[in-house]
């Protein structure tokens, strides 16, 4: 038996023994997702147990080195772990921006001290992070951000505000882009800072979205003091880190549509629209669903192929823009079709039958996918310039 086959067998046995049955059912609502953090209230003992057991193995972050709380697994072993988790229906033990975004950036750019301080706490779900990137005046033109960090000896003095900070009101720490050299060209005066959200001078205000929920906040910094040890990478070289982190954010958002509702669109539509002559009664919708399913399968295979290309070093570094663009547009298309299939049922906003408007809210939420983490238009710009080599701007 090869090493990988042995690993698969042992992994399966371990998961069967250690994943609580409650954690093998599909997540029904956002509360079923464990985000961790100082203020996290576990929804059940099973949720807590599952996180603890996985964290003890380092499997909340299987590919990270063991000295930083990871599992030290190879890419192939990680793939097997995910396959086995899927096969058993195991939920993710921990979702977090620390895992998806900050962790990879720290592994690449952080000091040894920063890695030892922050990575294990991310891996165990002890500290929940938020991302301080966009500002009211700096959206797609992120590099024009104005939040300032002034040199005050051992500390920086931070003033300004951030917007669309996801879950800032629930987060413990923030990774934040700040301007440290206002006189330099805009990309060259930015630094990457980490600080505690409980620092004096930090405040947050949730923003209610069209979906009715408030996952995003505006975050204000009023004379916030940040130790200089919390600067990641070199002073004024934060833009490289920011871009590196964005590629991870794009992969995350681009892949989001794949994890949701397991029922096929055809099935959802057949239930609500009905059939005539053995096919979906709305034949135009039927064609749209089939076209969507083909594209969705194609996208999934493309993610797989990009992974395979990355293994042999053949993937283009800007390919995450393709995944982000295509994945989010696809997810929006899917939810438009879900709404179309659901008809007036899908419009219900309150009450048990609709799980408080689950479908309608998911539809509205999906519209942010092609805006957050760089708009579709920004991704197309990146593809045009970096992959196709088209001239200009």
């Amino acid at each position, binding site marked *: 038996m090869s090493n990988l086959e042995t690993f698969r067998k042992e992994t399966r046995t371990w998961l069967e023994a250690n994943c609580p049955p409650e954690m093998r059912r599909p997540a029904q609502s956002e509360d079923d997702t464990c985000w961790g953090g100082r203020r996290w209230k576990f929804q059940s003992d099973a949720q807590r147990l599952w996180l603890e057991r996985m964290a003890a193995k380092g499997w909340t972050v299987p590919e990270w080195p063991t000295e930083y709380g990871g599992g030290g697994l190879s890419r192939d072993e990680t793939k097997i772990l995910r396959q086995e988790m899927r096969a058993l229906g195991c939920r993710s033990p921990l979702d977090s921006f620390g895992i998806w975004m900050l962790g990879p950036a720290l592994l690449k750019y952080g000091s040894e001290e920063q890695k030892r301080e922050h990575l294990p706490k991310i891996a165990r779900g002890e500290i929940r992070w938020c991302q301080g990137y966009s500002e009211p005046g700096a959206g797609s033109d992120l590099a024009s951000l104005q939040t300032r960090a002034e040199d005050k000896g051992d500390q920086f003095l931070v003033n300004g505000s951030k917007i669309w900070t996801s879950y800032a009101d629930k987060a413990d720490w923030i990774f934040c882009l700040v301007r440290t050299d206002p006189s330099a060209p805009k990309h060259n005066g930015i630094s990457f800072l980490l600080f505690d959200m409980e620092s004096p001078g930090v405040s947050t205000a949730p923003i209610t979205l069209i979906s009715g929920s408030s996952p995003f906040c505006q975050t204000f910094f009023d004379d916030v003091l940040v130790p200089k040890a919390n600067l990641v990478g070199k002073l004024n070289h934060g833009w490289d880190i920011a871009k590196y982190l964005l590629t991870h954010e794009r992969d995350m958002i681009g892949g989001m549509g794949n994890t949701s509702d397991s029922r096929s669109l055809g099935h959802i539509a057949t239930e609500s629209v009905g059939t005539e002559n053995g*096919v979906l009664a709305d034949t135009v919708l039927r064609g749209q*669903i089939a076209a969507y399913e083909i594209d969705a*399968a194609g996208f999934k295979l493309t993610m797989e*192929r990009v992974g395979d290309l990355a293994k042999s070093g053949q993937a283009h570094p800007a390919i995450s823009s*393709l995944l982000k663009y295509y994945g989010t547009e696809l997810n929006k298309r899917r939810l438009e079709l879900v709404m179309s299939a659901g008809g007036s049922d899908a419009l219900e906003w309150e009450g048990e039958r609709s799980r408080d408007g689950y479908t309608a809210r998911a539809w509205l939420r999906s519209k942010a996918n092609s805006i957050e983490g760089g708009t579709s238009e920004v991704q*197309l710009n990146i593809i045009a310039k970096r*992959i*196709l*080599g088209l001239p*200009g701007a």
Partner: protein
Amino acid sequence: MALVLTDEQTMLRDSTRGFLAKNAPIAHFRQLRDTRDPVGFSRPLWKNFVEMGLAGILIAPEHGGTGLGCVEAGVVLEELGRTLTPSPFLSTAVLAAAAVSRAGNDEQKKKYLPQIATGDLIATLAVDEAAKHRPERIALAAKRSGKDFKLKGAKTFVLDGHVADVVIVAARTSGAPGDASGLTLFIVDAKSKGLTVERTPMVDTHNSARLNFHDVSAGADAVLGEVDAGWSALEAVLNVGRACVAAELAGLSDEVFNRTVTYLKERKQFGKAIGEFQALQHRAAHLYCELEVTRSVVLKALQMLDESPAAATQIVSMAKARAGRSATLAVQEGVQMHGGIGMTDEFDIGLFMKRARVGQELFGDSNFHADRLAKIHKY
């Protein structure tokens, strides 16, 4: 299996590409077209293909082939798509070779496969009877007459039909049009009495013909596979053809795209390269994404046909549907972004548009395959 070509497959791609660039660029296609070549492809070039082992690519070594798979056949077709090279590769080396290999008995394999591999036999598959591909509606009748069968009816859109030595005909031996059961495959000599052939020049100047069967005799030894049970063999062969055409369309699209991006960088208007305009940049970037996604599905379909052909129907339909749609987008964007010059016959870009339209129709267009997928998923 990883969704990338192996080293050997990459070598095959590079050698085929190099060979075609040197020996059969678009000028070669133009020459055949402009001289109204009676054969429609170059026999010496086909001899070269034979020498490179390509004619026997799907044929087992015991029958004189190289015994490679659908991925390799797809690799070759992708390259043929880039140069628009007219070739009996699809009709003979893919469709006929796959049909005889899959459905034929030992005697038939011994008789036909070595001749295909050596380039001595041009063979094709005759399925369609109406303007749209609907194989279950086959009506061409094969009626028993003593030990033999008499074939009566007509076929259309038969690739290389006017130069084929033998034709594999999907005929109805029982049931009614619309039934999947009751179909039988026959392998018929093209010179058979009662078989008349009309070459039908198409928009892309690749070979196609109508075949009329006036009580053409076919002996029991002409039956490929089981009488009345030809559907699954036919579908299996069509699936190979569909995935291979999808690969050709992917290659064609890639070529069109590369030419178009090059043009965007060269062509100047308003004092700058038109590729500086965001209106065009975004369309080019979107097209790039569509073609990359298609490439993933096509490769997966070809791999599945080699690994577990019985389970490949769904992915093949996805590949053909996507390849048809993204090729249509590629050629339309290609012509539009080339502007006026894209409309001229002198410039190559329009030639790709013509071939893409034919490839879209071959063995089921995007709508056919989307419908098939919906049926598989029961909605």
